[in-house]
């Protein structure tokens, strides 16, 4: 029934047009100290139209699916594209790709809609009780959310892809206090799955481990600062993969000249033990999807192979600019947003060292575990991220906890300074990546040893 709008777009001068119609159903609970605070249930339908006219793009969206509204936003998209075409010096386009017709409905094993709200509440309560078993944990905020997104994608090239994806996530954020020292932490469990995610993972154990580590930190001294050897745990390796390397690999940033990896394909930039991938087909991965928001199938993509840059992430627009192919990396936060080049599940492949071997020979260093978030300047190739917990490494052994460790560096320098990787691979907690729009992502890797990493502590 939406074909008519694409046909109209073509008649009105669009060389290419696509349309995404979404139906989003969300359920959420918020708990404070184990008691329900808010319950939110909602439905939203919406539609976004992307058109290419005279070498320029226009995009318009509405959550009113009546005929007159769709007609209005189509005209708006066309007029924006025409106006852009008059102003724009560089002509844009869409990289040629096969058009897909498919219907992939990722049905969860346990549909959240069939789960009694009290069971959802119980998951968060379990996490709450697990962290409250430590007397230092003074208060908790918890939440549960499930989100089922149905999407129909159509294009003037004949693509017609219907998908349905469910993501389910629960978390507890807690504050721990001992004497004058106070700190906080979040433990999150989630996947591109239904309610079965909480039957696959021992949420109580995970929450307890988070609380135990946080309590240890309360007594920890501040970190030494300066250039030190740092061992990153799998979650922080994932954050480095995502923040420092992944963003710099995004084709739209590369094409815009905002990436330190611009023009570096084929160059050996990192240690040869480092292979970096982005993979939207990881079963249950928080960033996984069957088809992207331009109707291209999800796939695994190697970005850095044995230290050599072998590819970028592209949607069909950045692929046109870079004369490359789409990697199925077009993602939009919602129907109301134009798709951008985004990561999915990003990771460094495992190496061959045991954890003890990684620590061997380190006179003074830092073992950094988990992430409190990070940020990156892809043009300069600099990054900053903060560890959730950290430990001093002294003479090849873990000595004692440290608090508030931040790691700073230049991506390419750091990449060259990775001299050993652990042999066990783990995914970090599910996360959300912000690039003007938020999308769910996963990241992970092995333990990673980095020489000469800039470590900053707090004052």
């Amino acid at each position: 029934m939406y074909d008519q709008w694409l046909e109209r777009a073509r008649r009105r001068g669009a060389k290419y047009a696509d349309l995404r119609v979404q139906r989003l159903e969300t359920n959420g609970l918020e708990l404070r100290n184990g008691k329900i605070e808010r319950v939110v249930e909602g439905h939203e339908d919406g539609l976004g139209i992307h058109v290419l006219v005279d070498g320029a793009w226009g995009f318009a969206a509405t959550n009113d699916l009546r005929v007159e509204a769709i007609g209005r936003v189509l005209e708006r998209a066309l007029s924006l594209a025409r106006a852009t075409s008059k102003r724009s010096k560089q002509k844009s386009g869409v990289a040629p790709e096969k058009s897909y017709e498919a219907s992939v409905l990722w049905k969860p094993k346990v549909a959240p809609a069939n789960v009694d709200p009290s069971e959802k509440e119980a998951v968060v309560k379990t996490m709450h009780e697990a962290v409250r078993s430590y007397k230092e944990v003074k208060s908790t905020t918890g939440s549960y959310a499930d989100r089922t997104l149905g999407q129909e994608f159509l294009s003037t090239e004949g693509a017609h892809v219907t998908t349905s994806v469910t993501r389910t996530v629960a978390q507890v954020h807690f504050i721990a206090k001992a004497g004058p020292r106070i700190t906080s932490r979040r433990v999150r469990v989630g996947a591109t799955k239904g309610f079965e995610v909480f039957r696959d993972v021992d949420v109580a154990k995970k929450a307890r481990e988070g609380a135990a580590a946080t309590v240890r930190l309360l007594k920890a001294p501040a970190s030494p600062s300066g250039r030190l050897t740092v061992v990153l745990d799998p979650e922080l390796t994932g954050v480095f993969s995502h923040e420092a390397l992944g963003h710099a690999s995004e084709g739209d940033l590369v094409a815009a000249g905002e990436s330190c990896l611009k023009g570096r394909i084929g160059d050996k930039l990192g240690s040869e033990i480092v292979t970096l991938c982005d993979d939207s087909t990881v079963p249950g991965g928080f960033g996984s999807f069957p088809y992207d928001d331009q109707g291209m199938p999800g796939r695994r993509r190697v970005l850095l192979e044995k230290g050599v840059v072998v590819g970028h992430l592209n949607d069909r627009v950045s692929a046109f600019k870079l004369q490359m192919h789409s990697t199925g990396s077009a993602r939009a936060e919602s129907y109301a947003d134009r798709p951008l080049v985004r990561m999915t599940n990003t990771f460094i492949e495992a190496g061959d060292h045991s954890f003890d071997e990684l620590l061997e020979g380190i006179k003074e260093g830092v073992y950094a575990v988990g992430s409190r978030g990070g940020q990156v300047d892809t043009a300069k190739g600099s990054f900053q991220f903060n560890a959730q917990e950290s430990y001093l490494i002294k003479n090849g052994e873990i000595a004692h906890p440290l608090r508030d460790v931040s790691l700073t560096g230049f991506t390419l320098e750091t990449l060259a300074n990775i001299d050993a990787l652990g042999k066990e691979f783990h995914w970090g907690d599910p996360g959300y990546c912000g690039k003007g729009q938020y999308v769910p992502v996963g990241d992970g890797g092995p333990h990673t040893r980095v020489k000469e990493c800039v470590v900053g502590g707090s004052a």
Partner: protein
Amino acid sequence: MGACERAVRLAVRMGAESSEVFALRDQGGTVDMEKGDVAGAEWSETLGFGIRIVKNKRVGFAYASVEERLKDAVEAALRASKLGKPLPKFEFPGPRRPPRVTGLYDPRIASLGGEELLSFAGELLDAVVDVREDLLVAGGGIHVGVTEAAVANSQGLERTSKETGLGGSAYVVQRRDGVSTGFANAESTRSDLKWARIGREAGDLAVRSSNPQKLEKGKAMACILRPDPAADLLGTVTIPSLYGKPARRGESYYSGKVGKRVMHDKVSIVDDATIPRGLGSTPFDDEGVPSAPRKIVAAGTLKSYLFDHYDAAEHGDRATGNAVRAHPFDGRSYKSPPTTSALQIRVVAPHTTTEKLVASVDDGLLLHDMMGVHTANAVSGDFSVTSSVVFRVRKGAVEGPVAPLSVAGNVHKALGKGLRLGDDVKAIGGSPAWNLPAVLFEGFTVTP
């Protein structure tokens, strides 16, 4: 408004003891820039309804994007209320006359089309190249928005408001002797922005920050934060710590400190949504409570916390007109029940011209950006961030750029020591919005 009133009555007919409907219509567009050119333009228009009901003293919330589904939403809200905890003191606000807040709607902005936005982008792009030909606008754009909000409840409250916003930003890269970057932005509720000024400011900064010298060693230094990083730091650590819920629950640095000295006695923090043309100004909050200026911290003494009606009812406090519907990803949205937020913050402290502020520093830094502020610990006040566009200040003068460095400190302690302000007051949008000049903090630790 008609749909809101109908839904309020519908909810009561369906069994709610009281009800409230908030509707938000958003229309807006953006033009993105990259590689020294316009990259694309987008537009969206959305309308939706958030409905709150009270039944058996319990509050429930649901939302719908079309009026036809309001009945489903009422049913969902009634269902949700069964899971909620009893809040006997909760009630929706009654109708009180809101103040007149001027300059929030500009019909010239409401009538802007794609052509005009693209011409604004053109002015901005041209100004960057005028600074130096090899500068490249790598990101940024122009955005415009028209927001109409309506709130109605079964206490007889009915309010509507209409606001406009227009803004522009530029992220400029210079590749000459390495890479340097510059950034500038501006926002207004009126159609009065100087697009070329944004381009010039970003371009100048990229040129001035090239060839940075490494700081010789780590040490404690006076740091002048430009308005954006200062608002980011205070908005992450200080302001949320003043919200009633965490404070009353003992989860905030300010817990149990009402009436006590919490900052230097020359520092005051004011939440004021009545400033004419303010980016966070509004005649009433998202529950319909009239706006009024409020000193949260007066001369260093904590006066009160901020509350929406829900949190106020939970803790036996009064709502302070600080309800916002803030979605974690979407900004202001009908999809979120109200939560507490400051609306528009002003900081009052000893001030001078920004020039004299710089002149007062013997050895320090002028920071234009801070990366990673969101990782700061709001409870302890500790933060450790990176600044990559930063200049050395020596003997009262801004010298050359400094290579990216790590800045760490404690915001709560810094506010206790006091701060000084410049006069380059900038309107910064967001929740909360800010009217803030450059801020001089003493004693942050800097590591090269």
